[in-house]
């Protein structure tokens, strides 16, 4: 059989058909190749990222804010995680029962929650911030769609109002707003980190790919503050302010050897854990940010300068009779007319006339320098926000009457911290020590501002002011020798001295033989009838000093005899 002759095979296809198919295939493959190149070459990064986003996640690693501790390691401020509940308005549709449960869990009225959930103007709303993790877990257990939780930190202050002004507080985002929290924000704040992980379809992390940024917890901060002394100072101050029906008050306790701030209390105060009702007066850290005319507490500096310049000696006699002195039309008066007083007695009896007479023998420039040297007119450098520098006017503008009044602390303004620090000069044998809010390990180097001999002479005068013939017998402490000075000053109101408003103060140190602590007390506008520093502020000083010396185990240097006090109202009145 001749197949070749088959008529079927005679049929020939046109050549173009096979060509056509070939081209179609070539074109198809070219298309695929092009697509492959596009996907794997040109568009690779985008697709890779898309693919990774299916399993790879960047997770935030939270960091804690550091704790604030007192000098003995007691916790004063701690951050602990809390939860905030938030929602996308319009997407959360709880049932009636869920809503009722939610309202009772969050302790909020139902209507309030409903209002927040339907707020059309926003696409994010906090239902409630900073609730405890336990409550948050129960809220999560309600399974309300459209309701979410996020982790936040909340700062707690176990000591409450006692050290509110020192510690300050943080805002809702755990950022310092006041006090130490603000001053040491950098050090305390933690830096949250992040890392990339691979998650499986159940949402569980299966592999750690890389750490993008390591989380850094904030550093703990150890303050110089001693919680026991702080508590003592606060409770005594509070009692005194209440008892004297005063407007406000402040206490500063300094360690003489190290310049550390052991306690700083203000009243009125506030509870940093609950700041819903806060008034400006409560928030003010008066001892640091407010200045006042100190009054007689400045006399020792005038005397020290006169001693240093060799103008007087402690036993030099100053005639203060008839108890008044007229300079350029203005008259300086003593509350208590004395006759001739020694320089030491001028301090002991707190004679304005005596101090003014001594001051007029000194040059304005040297007085100005002395005030600047002991730290007046410049911020004390504790590091608190808003530290007041006080006011010492340039000496070129002083009139003689002003120089005379400045010698006993009028026409000059200082803060309580500055005053306490200035007294450390007498306590430290003439050295001014830098102050510190945080615990210091090595005693700092002081700056010499007067001769040790002068400081010692003033110290013994200050000790006389506290004995029963001085202005402050109530500052005595059993078992310890105390040195200090009272101050009573009229308050300035609208540029004139108010006749019935006073600032009573007392600054002193103990034990006088080897000073360890300086305590400064200021009571603003005592209005229970008494206003002399020796009656209002000195007893507070004695209580705090006695307690603090006991807490610090300072060896007594005085006789263990009960203190003799002159009868009420009979003590030497200081000049105002």
């Amino acid at each position, binding site marked *: 059989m001749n197949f070749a002759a088959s008529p079927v095979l005679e049929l020939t296809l046109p050549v173009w058909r096979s060509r056509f198919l070939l081209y179609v295939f070539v074109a198809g493959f070219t298309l695929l190749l092009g697509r492959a190149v596009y996907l794997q070459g040109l568009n690779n990064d985008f697709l890779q990222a898309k693919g990774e986003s299916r399993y790879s996640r960047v997770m935030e690693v939270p960091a*804690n804010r550091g*704790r604030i501790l007192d000098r003995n390691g*007691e*916790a*004063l401020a*701690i*951050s*602990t*995680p809390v939860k905030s509940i938030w929602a996308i308005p319009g997407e959360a549709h709880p049932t009636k029962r869920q809503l009722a449960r939610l309202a009772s869990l969050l302790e909020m009225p139902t209507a309030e929650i409903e209002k927040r959930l339907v707020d059309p103007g926003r696409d994010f709303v906090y239902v409630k911030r900073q609730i405890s*993790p336990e409550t948050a877990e129960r809220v999560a257990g309600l399974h309300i769609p459209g309701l979410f939780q996020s982790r936040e930190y909340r700062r*707690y202050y*176990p*000591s*409450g109002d*006692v050290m509110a002004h020192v510690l300050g507080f943080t805002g809702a985002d755990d950022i310092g707003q006041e006090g130490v929290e603000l001053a040491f924000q950098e050090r305390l704040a933690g830096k949250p980190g992040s890392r990339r992980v691979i998650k499986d379809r159940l949402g*569980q*992390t*299966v*592999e*750690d790919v890389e750490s993008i940024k390591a989380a850094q917890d904030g550093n703990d901060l150890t303050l110089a503050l001693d*919680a*026991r002394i702080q*508590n*003592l100072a606060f*409770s005594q101050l509070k009692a005194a302010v209440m008892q004297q029906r005063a407007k406000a008050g402040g206490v500063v306790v300094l360690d003489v050897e190290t310049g550390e701030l052991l306690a700083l209390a203000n009243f009125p105060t506030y509870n940093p854990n609950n700041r819903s009702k806060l008034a400006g007066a409560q928030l003010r850290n008066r001892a640091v940010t407010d200045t006042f005319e100190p009054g007689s507490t400045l006399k020792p500096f005038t005397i020290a300068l006169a001693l240093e310049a060799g103008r007087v000696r402690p036993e030099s006699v100053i005639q203060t009779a008839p108890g008044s002195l007229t300079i350029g039309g203005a008259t300086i008066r003593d509350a208590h007319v004395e006759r001739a007083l020694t320089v030491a007695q001028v301090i002991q009896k707190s004679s304005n006339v005596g101090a003014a007479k001594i001051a007029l023998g000194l040059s304005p420039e040297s007085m100005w320098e002395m005030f600047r040297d002991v730290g007046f007119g410049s911020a004390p450098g504790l590091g608190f926000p808003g530290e007041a520098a006080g006011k010492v006017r340039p000496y070129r503008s002083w009139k003689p009457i002003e120089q005379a009044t400045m010698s006993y602390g009028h026409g000059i303004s200082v803060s309580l911290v500055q005053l306490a620090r200035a007294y450390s000069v007498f306590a430290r044998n003439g050295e001014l020590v830098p102050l510190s809010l945080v615990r210091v390990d090595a005693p700092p180097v002081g700056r010499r501002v007067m001769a040790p001999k002068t400081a010692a002479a003033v110290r013994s005068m200050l000790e006389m002011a506290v004995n029963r013939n001085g202005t402050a017998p109530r500052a005595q402490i*059993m*078992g310890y020798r105390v040195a200090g000075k009272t101050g009573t000053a009229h308050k300035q109101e609208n540029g004139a001295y108010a006749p019935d408003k006073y600032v009573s103060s007392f600054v002193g140190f103990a034990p006088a033989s080897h000073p360890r602590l300086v305590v400064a007390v200021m009571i603003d506008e005592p209005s229970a009838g008494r206003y002399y520093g020796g009656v209002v502020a000195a007893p507070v000083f004695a209580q705090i000093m006695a307690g603090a010396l006991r807490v610090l185990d300072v*060896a*007594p240097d005085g006789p*263990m*005899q*009960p203190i003799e006090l002159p009868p009420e109202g009979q003590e030497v009145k200081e000049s105002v």
Partner: protein
Amino acid sequence: MARLNLLLLAVLAACALSLVTSQHQARRFFGELEQEQERSRQLGVEYGQLQLEASTWAVHARVERIASRQLHMRVPEAKRLQIARPQEAAK
């Protein structure tokens, strides 16, 4: 030659399987590590809360109140105090 190939195939299969198991184990261990780390964070949080609680209970005002009201403690009077000085004790 075929025998060698078969042997290599078996080795390859074994390697592949062990890779799968070790990867699985790695993930399991990682999961455990995650859990432990979470636990350590939780414990850290709890430690902070306990510290807070301890501080709250030990607030000086409270200690003082309990000492004076419940335990009737007070600072001794002056005449009942006697100070022992180290140098006197040494004599």
